[in-house]
């Protein structure tokens, strides 16, 4: 157990030092470009809704669409083959090459053929295969795997690529600049394309009604691969089928913006193969025989053959899986990788499985390669949810990761040390669950015990031997400060003190939700929240309600989280009936109410709680907008540097905190990193401590020298405490009287 964790930590440390620094800046800049492109495009959100609806319907209708597609491609003069699995697909393509006597084959970039390992099959069949996308070309020469689904060679520096090309081709003048290398590759690969017998491309979309397909590219190699050789083979997953070209619009508008931040890629090709364009035989001295450029119809050129290979390879099963089906809506844009702080730090060779990388890879790998491949990296998703905003088809990527984690937990072998945490864990989970997961998943119970025995529990937890044992057995990294439990909880404090605004004088009544951190550890931010609300004439209640279930959910303990959700709803429903608002300090708890409870509670209950719930600064903002005076609040320091919580960002909460601080007279500077890196328990874990600190460094750099730094999430506060030294308050502590 412990040595596995150390191995994982060592693997990630290696990537943090080698590939991470190369890939990080490139994907971060694509991420910023995506924000800018979405900003420039007014209909970003509504177009995402359209795209989502089209994919949902298309996957629902997949069997019918598949048949319709087969008929239309065949009517156009092409051939369709549906391959059950990788071996089946590879067999079809290699046999086709054999029949045609094909010696060389050129390919444009396709993750699906990576999934199939088609190149290996072609090599075994004696077909010389050339990748013509420059990134894939580099990877093929280096005999490596893609580190990013859109930019396969992003982990390589220009110098490394130059060394590779110079060593492989020994050009007269060594290649050095990007221009020289591009020109060299263009010429070399151009020749390969001109002499190739078969061209293989992927397909970004396939249209059932007309048998058309679309390719979205920048380099132009896919166009050449499709149009130059006589035989074009398109290999793609069955999930790429859309009903008709009428459905193409939202995807044209979204895919490039999401992928690279370009408004549109250089080439968006729509083919209805076999195409009318004449084939090109570069060995012939005869003039090309052109037909009519303005013909009424573009009928296929007689010399052309087209094969569409549609790959199942686990997709039908994914389609039947209610929890993971969404994976099939994915259009492989890579935005979830670019927006992910952990991906930025280690790249796709760390945050990825056999073929796919980034947040959605968990779904793809579980579907096409199996749970073992998903298990390799699934823990790297911290549930920060930044990819949720990035995804052009609105896939709930964190949920897919949670579901796979839950299933992995259930498959795990019972652990001999279970008894150590059994006393802490009234959870609903199987006994094989990893101890660290069980420990962190039962944080509420741990906090309750810790608080009841504070300060002794804190002293014990700090003691060297205890930390060593925690690391060895539970995987809690000894370099990380542990939370310090408070003897007096927020609820106890409030019980003694009672509400300070009389019911008759109150403008509103609210429940301050005591999440486990605010209740047991960061009690001061809870008290500050109570004082701020009361200063604005809100009658506050702080009932004893269970923790939100965020802690177990992030360990993949879905049943336990669901149990929390039922208790929380039961504990708050009557307050909501009494017209009270629910005010939440901890953004990760609010995100449970607003996002995940949809999946854990009856729909009406989830809606009701979500509608009644507000983040504390959002609520204060509302009070100020409705006539409350900032003068009633305290005065914050003149300048505040504020880091919004990742899940808070996804809920668009940052503007409220900024507005309230400004209304109270502060000038505010905000960070633009996606996540602090701590992400609940993630940064405590021995395997991930260094990755967590690495991700946090960027935030620390942005705030270096700032006199006052504030945050909203417990994790962010802890992480910034560790990185900057000193105590980082919650923003509400800066404005509470």
């Amino acid at each position, binding site marked *: 157990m412990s040595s596995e964790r150390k191995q994982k930590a060592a693997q990630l440390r290696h990537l943090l030092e080698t590939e991470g620094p190369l890939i990080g800046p490139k994907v971060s800049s694509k991420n910023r470009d995506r924000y800018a492109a979405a900003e420039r495009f007014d209909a970003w959100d509504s177009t995402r809704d359209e795209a989502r609806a089209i994919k949902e319907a298309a996957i629902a209708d997949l069997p019918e669409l598949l048949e319709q597609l087969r008929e239309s491609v065949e009517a156009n003069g092409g051939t369709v083959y549906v391959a059950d699995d990788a071996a089946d697909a590879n067999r079809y393509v290699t046999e086709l090459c054999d029949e045609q006597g094909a010696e060389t084959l050129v390919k444009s970039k396709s993750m699906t053929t990576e999934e199939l390992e088609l190149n290996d099959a072609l090599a075994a069949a004696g077909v010389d295969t050339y990748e013509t996308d420059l990134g894939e070309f580099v990877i093929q020469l280096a005999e490596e795997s893609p580190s990013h689904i859109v930019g396969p060679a992003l982990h390589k520096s220009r110098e490394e690529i130059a060394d590779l090309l110079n060593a492989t081709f020994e050009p007269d003048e060594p290649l050095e600049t990007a221009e020289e290398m591009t020109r060299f590759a263009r010429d070399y690969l151009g020749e390969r394309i001109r002499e190739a017998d078969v061209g293989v491309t992927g397909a970004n979309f396939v249209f059932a009604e007309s048998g058309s397909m679309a390719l979205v590219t920048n380099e132009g190699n896919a166009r050449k691969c499709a*149009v130059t050789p006589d035989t074009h083979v398109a290999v793609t997953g069955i999930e790429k089928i859309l009903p008709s070209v009428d459905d193409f619009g939202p995807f044209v508008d979204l895919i490039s913006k999401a992928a690279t931040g370009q408004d549109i890629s250089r080439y968006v090709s729509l083919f209805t193969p076999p195409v009318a364009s004449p084939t090109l035989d570069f060995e012939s001295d005869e003039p090309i025989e052109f037909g009519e450029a303005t013909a009424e119809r573009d009928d296929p050129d007689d010399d052309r053959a087209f094969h569409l290979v549609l790959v199942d390879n686990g997709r039908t099963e994914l389609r039947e899986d209610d929890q993971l089906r969404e994976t099939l809506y994915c259009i492989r844009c890579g935005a979830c990788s670019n927006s992910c702080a952990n991906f930025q730090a280690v790249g796709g060779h760390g945050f990825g499985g056999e073929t796919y990388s980034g947040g959605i890879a968990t779904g793809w790998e579980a579907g096409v390669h199996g749970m073992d491949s998903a298990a390799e990296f699934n823990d790297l998703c911290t549930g920060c949810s930044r990819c949720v905003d990035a995804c052009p088809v609105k896939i709930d990527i964190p949920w897919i990761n949670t579901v796979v984690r839950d299933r992995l937990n259930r498959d795990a072998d019972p652990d001999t040390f279970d008894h150590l945490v059994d006393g802490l864990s009234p959870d609903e989970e199987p006994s094989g669950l990893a101890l660290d997961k069980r420990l962190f998943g039962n944080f509420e119970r741990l906090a309750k015990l810790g608080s009841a025995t504070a300060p002794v529990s804190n002293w014990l937890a700090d003691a060297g031997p205890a930390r060593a044992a925690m690391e060895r057995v539970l995987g809690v990294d000894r370099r990380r400060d542990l939370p310090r439990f408070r003897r007096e909880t927020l609820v106890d404090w409030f019980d003694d003190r009672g509400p300070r605004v009389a019911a008759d004088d109150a403008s509103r009544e609210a429940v301050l939700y005591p999440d486990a951190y605010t209740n047991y550890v960061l009690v001061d931010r809870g008290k500050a929240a109570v004082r701020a609300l009361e200063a604005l004439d809100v009658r506050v209640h702080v009932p004893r309600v269970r923790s939100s279930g965020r802690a177990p959910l992030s360990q993949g303990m879905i049943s336990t989280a669901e149990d929390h959700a039922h208790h929380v709803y039961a504990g708050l429903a009557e307050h909501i009936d009494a017209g009270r608002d629910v005010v939440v300090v901890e953004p990760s708890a609010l995100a449970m109410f607003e996002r995940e409870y949809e999946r854990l509670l009856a729909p009406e209950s989830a809606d009701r709680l979500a509608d009644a719930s507000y983040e504390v600064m959002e609520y204060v903002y509302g009070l100020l907008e409705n006539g409350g005076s900032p003068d009633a609040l305290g005065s914050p320091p003149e300048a505040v540097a504020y880091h919004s919580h990742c899940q808070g960002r996804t809920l668009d909460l940052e503007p409220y905190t900024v507005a309230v601080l400004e209304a109270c007279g502060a000038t505010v500077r905000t960070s633009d990193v996606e996540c602090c890196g701590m992400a609940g328990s993630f940064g405590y874990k021995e395997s991930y401590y260094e990755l967590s600190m690495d991700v946090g460094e960027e935030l620390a750099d942005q705030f270096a020298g700032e006199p006052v730094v504030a945050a909203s999430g417990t994790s962010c506060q802890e992480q910034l405490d560790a990185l900057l030294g000193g105590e980082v308050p919650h923003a509400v502590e800066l404005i509470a009287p």
Partner: protein
Amino acid sequence: MTVTDDFLDALDDLDVSHDRTTLADLPATLADAVTDPAVGVPLHVDASLPGSVATTFTPSELQDAATGVTPARLGIAEYGSVVIRSSAGGDEPLSLYPERHVAVLDAADVVATGRDAVDWLASEVAAGRGSHVLATGASATADMGGLVEGVHGPNEVHVVLVEADTE
């Protein structure tokens, strides 16, 4: 701002140069716009290619051509794209192989948005003209450690916009 203005602005943003001309002046405009040797697809508008643009040539002459002239069947103002039809006339390879692509576009064929273009594409597909590429600027890559224009496709795109003669 008209769609034409928007389209021309979008071309500027992409570093795509352009000429504005009339049908009568088109051959002369094209003669100036091409770099020799030039190959071309017979135009979809009522004008001929200048004599310097070959319409009969071998594949290796296509490979060696400096300029390819093709019809652009549509322009998209939102993106600065030209839509190249993959006809039997060879629009696709001629817009792809030579380093300079000169696209001849009737100003009446400029639409405002990508969505308008997809609507048009759908009607083309239904009419049996099912293969087109929305080409936006020069071919590009960042795979070699820096952004480079001119990869497998052209590194220069020039649009010749044919407007109605106002005289």
